[in-house]
């Protein structure tokens, strides 16, 4: 379990990073939490590892207008501990589920997005919130909506000569509530099924919009507008009343082949339960006098 030989470079500028990636046989190293095991098992053999940790300006974490912008080398743990995270409530809900604390202290937010594991949490958060991802490549920079970025399992709109340099998460507005949950065999494992939810209500508490992203259930995060689903569930938007509709949704969008840890059928069951629970929670949190469900 030793990597095959590779060249290692640590450029100081983004231009140099792109120059090293030109040709397409390089691989970006940020936190290395997914890449290094892949190298050690010789499942990947890039000619060059391009370490971006010394590139100036990629470690920014700041509020920028109505978004929180996370640079390419910002660690998951840094974001988790930052007061800025509270402005995007799905982030503090989701980050504790990303691996374990030790992994989060090395792993980067953008690395998780660029790796695009279909069961990962951060791609789902990005999709649910409609985050924008900024990609630099040989033809310049481009901004990609999260839902378009994830095109398949471990597959994104960033090509082999591109580097994801930042992610912008929209700051929550008034009348928004969120929910996040996943079920894994153990804490810290990739989810068998998970959901991120966002519900917006108006000043009277009427549901304006509801959005749900499932993960671990297909080859990429799957996002649906579930406004009508939530509205149809009775005035309390209570979990039991939502279950028939979320079960229907599960049958539609859960299409992963399944494995020994979770078959397609079990993942449908989990998705249906979690979707109902987290929609109810998001709705309650969105209400003017937000009340946590005692259950």
């Amino acid at each position, binding site marked *: *379990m*030793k*990597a*095959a*030989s590779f060249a290692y470079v640590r450029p100081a500028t983004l231009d140099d990073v792109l120059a090293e990636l030109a040709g397409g046989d390089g691989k970006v190293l940020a936190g290395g939490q997914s890449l290094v095991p892949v190298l050690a*098992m*010789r499942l990947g053999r890039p000619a060059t590892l391009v370490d971006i940790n010394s590139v100036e300006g990629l470690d920014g974490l700041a509020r920028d207008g109505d978004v929180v912008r996370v640079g390419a080398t910002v660690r998951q743990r840094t974001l988790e501990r930052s007061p800025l995270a509270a402005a995007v409530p799905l982030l503090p809900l989701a980050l504790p589920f990303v691996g*374990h604390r030790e992994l989060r202290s090395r792993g980067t937010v953008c690395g998780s997005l660029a790796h695009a594991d279909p069961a990962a949490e951060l791609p789902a958060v990005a999709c649910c919130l409609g985050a924008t991802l900024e990609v630099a490549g040989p033809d310049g920079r481009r901004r990609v909506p999260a839902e378009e970025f994830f095109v398949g399992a471990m597959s994104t709109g960033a090509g082999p000569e591109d580097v994801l340099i930042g992610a912008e998460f929209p700051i929550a507005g008034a009348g928004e509530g969120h929910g996040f949950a996943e*079920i894994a*065999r*153990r*804490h*810290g*494992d*990739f989810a*068998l099924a998970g959901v991120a939810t966002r519900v917006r209500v108006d000043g009277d508490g009427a549901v304006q919009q509801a959005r749900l992203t499932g993960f671990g259930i297909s080859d990429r995060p799957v996002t649906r507008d579930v406004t009508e689903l939530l509205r149809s569930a009775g005035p309390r938007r209570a979990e039991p009343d939502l279950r028939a509709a979320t079960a229907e949704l599960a049958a539609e969008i859960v299409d992963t082949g399944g*494995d*020994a*840890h*979770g*078959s397609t*059928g*079990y993942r449908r*069951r*989990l998705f249906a*339960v*979690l979707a109902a629970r987290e929609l109810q929670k998001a709705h309650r949190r969105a209400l003017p006098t937000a009340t946590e469900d005692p259950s």
Partner: protein
Amino acid sequence: MSGKWTPSRIEDGPLVTGRGRFLDDMDPLPGTLVAAVVRSTQPHARIRGVDMSRARAHPGVAAVIGPDEVLAALRPFPLSTGAPMHYYPTGTDRVRFVGEPVAVVVATDRYTAEDAAELVAIDYEPLDVVVGARAALAEDAPRLHEDAESNVATDRTFSFGEVDEVFAEAAHVVEGEYDFPRYSSVPMECYSVIADWREGADGPSVEAWANFHGPFTMVPVMAGALGIPTSKVRLHVPADIGGSFGIKAGIYPYVVLMALASKHSGTPVRWTEDRIEHLLASSTGADRVMRFAAAVTADGTVTGLKVDLVDNVGAYLRPPEPSTLYRCFGNITGPYTIGAVQIRARAVVTNSMPTGLNRGFGGQQLYFGLERLMDAVADATGLDVVDVRRRNLIRGFPYETPTGGVYDSGDYHAAVDLAVKNADLAELRARQEAARAEGAYYGIGVGLVTDPSGTNIGYVGLATPAEQRKPGRDKSGSTEHVRISVDMQGLVTVMLGSVPQGQGHATVARQVAADRLGLPVEAVRVVVDMDTATTPWTVTSGSYSSRFAPLVTSAVVQAADRIAHTVRAAASVMLDLPPEELELADGTVRHRDDPSRAVQFRHAAGVVHWDPGALPEGTPARLYEEAAFTPREVKAATRDDRINSSLCYGFVAELVAVRIDPDTLEITIDRVSSVHDAGTVLNQQLLDGQVHGALTHALGGAMYEEFTYAESGQPTSGTFLDYLCPTSAETGYDLRTDHVVTPSPLTPLGAKGSGEGSSMSFPVALANAVADALRPTGVEITKLPLHGEVLHQLLENTTQKELS
């Protein structure tokens, strides 16, 4: 907060400050090269040829060996039975599991060795595969070993007592078929070997280092394969080993393989197993398919037992297998007064990793069947699961079982009562009632096990029919050797051959020796690194079958008492008192009635070293003593196949309560009450640690860990992404542990082993709890592991059945 941390074990300081010295930290021989192992990608295939030419030509490569070199130099490992299933450290004619070694590359470093290993080209002719014990038994199953008539490596039937009669008279015959899964203990440190082949004036010899922990019966097995005398295999074991729990007993084929690699490279060779290799090809507990039947009277008394065990030992009958079948032979009836028993014991080979020792060895498999069966007995008789067990518990000790076990001591009723009280069973039943009222699942499971320790290796003989066992060639014993010496300053050194892997043997041995010699613990040091050329050892030496507390500490007592005898003799001269009136206490040798008449221990010891002319007639000037604790209660198997398979038998009573989310089917452990009887407690903290560790190990097997294989024979749990070990996040349940103490009359301190009890009891207690929780659904629990996906499938199938 107090300012200074005091380690509770002598081992802890170095370990937690990074000063442990594990095998991979050691570099004892200059010029050692590094090996990588080329492994089979095929579950079952004929080896048409192995082309090593490109690997041999790779820069930095010193040697490459494959099946031809193995066949030319080695003999098959001697097996525990006469099965014609030749076992070498590599595949020779065929490969029989994914991960089986085929070739070894020796190079300047591991990177180069792995680069060259990719250049070894193996030409395979794929063969049909056998996955799982049931498939192995099929009439038309592909055969793994051409010389054998079937895949059955051993098949023996035993009968004790009036089995047919009690079954004929039974009010109920309760039956069950159960599957026990295949899992490991996943030590943090993997296998590591350094081997050096030397040609000497008197022929070849091998000096090797390995993080091996016995049983040292494997030293003659290694020598047998190498074709050299046992005394010419010198094996070193480092003081620090990063866990094993039995798994590292499976390292010995690699010692032989690296010795052969060293012969070809002309240098010492080092190989350290990586995690991928470990999860594919090191060792695991055996999975078992089993049928049980109980003859039960109308009042719920179990009078007879039939068991049919089929162990899947993997591709080879690697010694010490088929011991999983026999380790619990003397306690196969568990803690119950079952007078008649019939046993069929089979081991089969399949295209999977070979099996071996794993904490609880044979016990978790046995008790999964026996204690699931006891729940079925409760069902059949309408009795409560605790009551039906109480009705059948053994009361008087010593107790002889029909299979030859002699339980040395115990108070099973007291332990069960305590476990029930600590669990607050009434409250748990109330929780269950409340949960059921709202449509939720809540269950309570019980597991009672007789916990054997200090194995009698004679049980291995049972795999061979009595008429084929040669007179005068019997095997028996639970011997452990210890050497104690006192230096010129009076410092005591205790040398153990117990090769610990983190259990804290040095801490306990130091305390025991200090107590016997009346010294502060600071005056005693313990040496645990092993060298077969200098450390006292025998075939039964090692760290397995919970033997430290009952056997090793007994040898420490015996050796220390001999030292004390000599020191008293020396002091008697100094004090002018008869030695029999002297006692060792407070660092002195003193008159037992007048402590003011005393000399320092070190001064008395000094007389032995410096002034032996002053010693009394008949007292040798020797302050080193060896003891071989040799209990007489463990004898070879009788002609009618009974055996006392362990010296001591402890007891565990465990209650487990689980809550199951009716929507997600996640299982949450609500409470565990575990009561152990390990005889005299030598160190409460270490005993608690063993209980916690065994519980977590068992939690892995019960809910998370399993080595699985696809129908194609490819392993499907080859990394930690799929082979899931419980972490601290999974163990945060309400745990209540306690102890009952019935000292063993067979060991000088009254101690029994305790490292494996909950490994045996918890898997079935959890299964019983889940079965109890799901009782309203009609789901049957007959196998492990249990988790949401498994319950989902069970419930779906039950619903399907109801619909059809």
